[in-house]
């Protein structure tokens, strides 16, 4: 009875640690024959991450039963950070007591961290049919958010078929950034209906910071007064990380 997942480099693990730690401190990863999954919401139920990392992504993957691996992300993150770019990482477990982390391809380093009891119940993913879709350079999107963040805590996104506006209103003033299909870094803007919704910048900025430079383009979907979804790839063979954020609806 064992679980082993080995990657050539620590890059994906680093990304996962960064992304997951923006919303939960004690995530439960599920490992089964298909691969590793994680699904979790932040304590205020505003943001969610849905992650799928299929077995084909790994240099070596074995899992002969279902494992629920719950841990303090800070502790695993510290170990992953010990790895250098060229180290391979092998994560394994034989029971629900310990997770074993081996850093190889260099000095052989082995760590154990204690698994903890899961306090979360299984999560569903929001059922959404979203009207507007944008595919954009991650850097362009992050820049735009920071522009709006210079004056506001929230961002309002307005899309019609050809252009998208990012609007911020704060105590100090206003910001409005317009992107067209022809702008550099914008690959797609499509909208079934004109869509307008408002979201917290704090959540968006922290997830984009966590993504770092690992994703070049990201796709965004949303609808009128509905949640916002960011999708980006994890590895080369069908892995993904989806981020969901509930809207802010000021109905004063």
């Amino acid at each position, binding site marked *: 009875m064992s679980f082993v997942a080995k990657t050539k480099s620590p890059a994906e693990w680093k990304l996962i640690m960064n992304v997951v730690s923006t919303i939960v401190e004690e995530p439960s990863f599920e490992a089964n024959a298909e691969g590793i999954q994680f699904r979790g919401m932040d304590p*205020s*139920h505003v943001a969610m991450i849905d992650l799928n990392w299929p077995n084909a992504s790994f240099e070596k993957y074995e899992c002969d039963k279902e494992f629920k691996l719950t841990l303090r992300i800070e502790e695993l993150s510290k170990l992953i950070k010990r790895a250098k770019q060229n180290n391979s990482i092998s994560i394994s477990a034989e029971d629900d007591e310990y997770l074993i982390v081996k850093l190889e391809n260099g000095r052989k380093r082995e760590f154990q961290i204690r698994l903890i009891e899961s306090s979360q119940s299984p999560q569903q993913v*929001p059922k959404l049919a979203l009207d507007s879709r944008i595919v954009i350079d991650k850097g362009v999107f992050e820049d735009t958010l920071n522009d709006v963040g210079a004056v506001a805590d929230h961002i309002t996104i307005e899309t019609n078929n050809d252009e998208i506006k990012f609007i911020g209103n704060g105590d100090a003033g206003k910001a409005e950034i317009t992107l067209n299909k022809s702008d550099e870094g914008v690959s797609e803007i499509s909208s079934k209906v004109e869509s307008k919704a408002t979201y917290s910048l704090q959540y968006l900025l922290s997830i984009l910071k966590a993504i770092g430079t690992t994703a070049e383009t990201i796709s965004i979907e949303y609808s009128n007064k509905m949640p916002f979804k960011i999708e980006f790839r994890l590895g080369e063979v069908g892995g993904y990380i989806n981020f969901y954020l*509930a809207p*802010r609806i000021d109905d004063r």
Partner: protein
Amino acid sequence: MTNKDIHSLAKVIEKKSLSHVNESTSNIVIDEPPPEMCFSCKGTELLCGKSRCPIILKAESMTRVSPTSDSNNIAGSTPPGIFVGRHGYPKVSIGPMTPNFHGDTEILDTPEQWYGKSIDEIVDYRHSLIRGSTNVDVKQASTGGRLVENIQELAMASQPVELELKLTKKPQNRLSFNENSQPFGPSAPLDHFSTGNVTVDQRIEKAYYDRDQKSANGIVELYDKGVLVSRIQKTLSAGNLGIGNNRKFVPTRWGITAVDDTISKSLIEKIKDRPTIDDFRVYVLRNLDNLYVTILLPTQWQFEWIEAWFTNTTWNLWGKEPYIIGDHETYYGRKKYARVGGCYYSTRLAVAESLLSENKQAGAILLREIHPGYILPVGVWNVRESIRHQLKTNYESFDNLSDTLDHAFSQLNISKNQWLNSSYLLNHVLFQKRLTEYL
């Protein structure tokens, strides 16, 4: 004090309270040239808009409690009290503080006992402590020396200590005509001081001898053992905590906030594991013409502190409308120092402490209105003790957010919309949807 000064004072306070003040024995110095407004007003017209004249309050307190002896030698029972200044850091002035009388003086430097006292009494406590000051480099806290060790020992005392100060000159009591300054007692450069027997608090002594413990851990451990927050602050300021060679004197004002911050962080880590409260609550308290409304929500830990300085209060003398400023943190805490300053951390401590005693977590939104009767800022202890007290009183309980906010805003003078414009968390709880609504 010159005859002219006495003459000036006689115009603004009752003559009989000046009967024992004369040119040769008084130690009151008029600090700043009195602004024209104050002198044309003389406290009778309250041109500054406050409900009482803060300068008169301080002048009366000084003539009431300040020693008028012309001696350089002061003897009394120290609460115990020490002071570490912040000007010139890392070269700062430090020294012991004592009144010029003997007895149980503990209350004079123990803000935990000040809740419910009038502003006059609090100003009296401050004015009655005479400070002898000497300049040191903060790092001398780890290198020792007789004076340093004596001050550190004094800071460990569990009860008042007999103290004799020999000062190089007569202590001066500065009556600042800057009406917004906090009251401070008289001071003079220290020649030397000697103490009677010091009974040390063994909990603090143990921390002092533990030279391998980081100061943050020392602070939390002392708190867990029941040492008063104000005593822990004194312990930190005296350089009695931390890794041996790194110990430093910490300016009193910084030490107060460092301790509030450190303790509340450790309490918050504990309450995050606890279940949330089951209801929505509104607590209301008035103290020293401050109005506090605390809203507790059945959510995960989050915290916001907003204060509204009415016109004619210390930090908003000339404005046309209340000045509102606040800060917040989500479940994950905050990294930057709060713009509102130390009171953020003092009240966060009061809230976290109350929740932990109930074994619960909650979201907390604290709204404070400062009305013109709060004529002087008396220190962050005021908000800490007020909120501690408030959270022990009865509250109104509700089962939904809307009724909760209606009740909370009905207690306040500033409108709901004005608060909403300044509050992150109010906006968040009112308008932020949850993903669970879309599953």
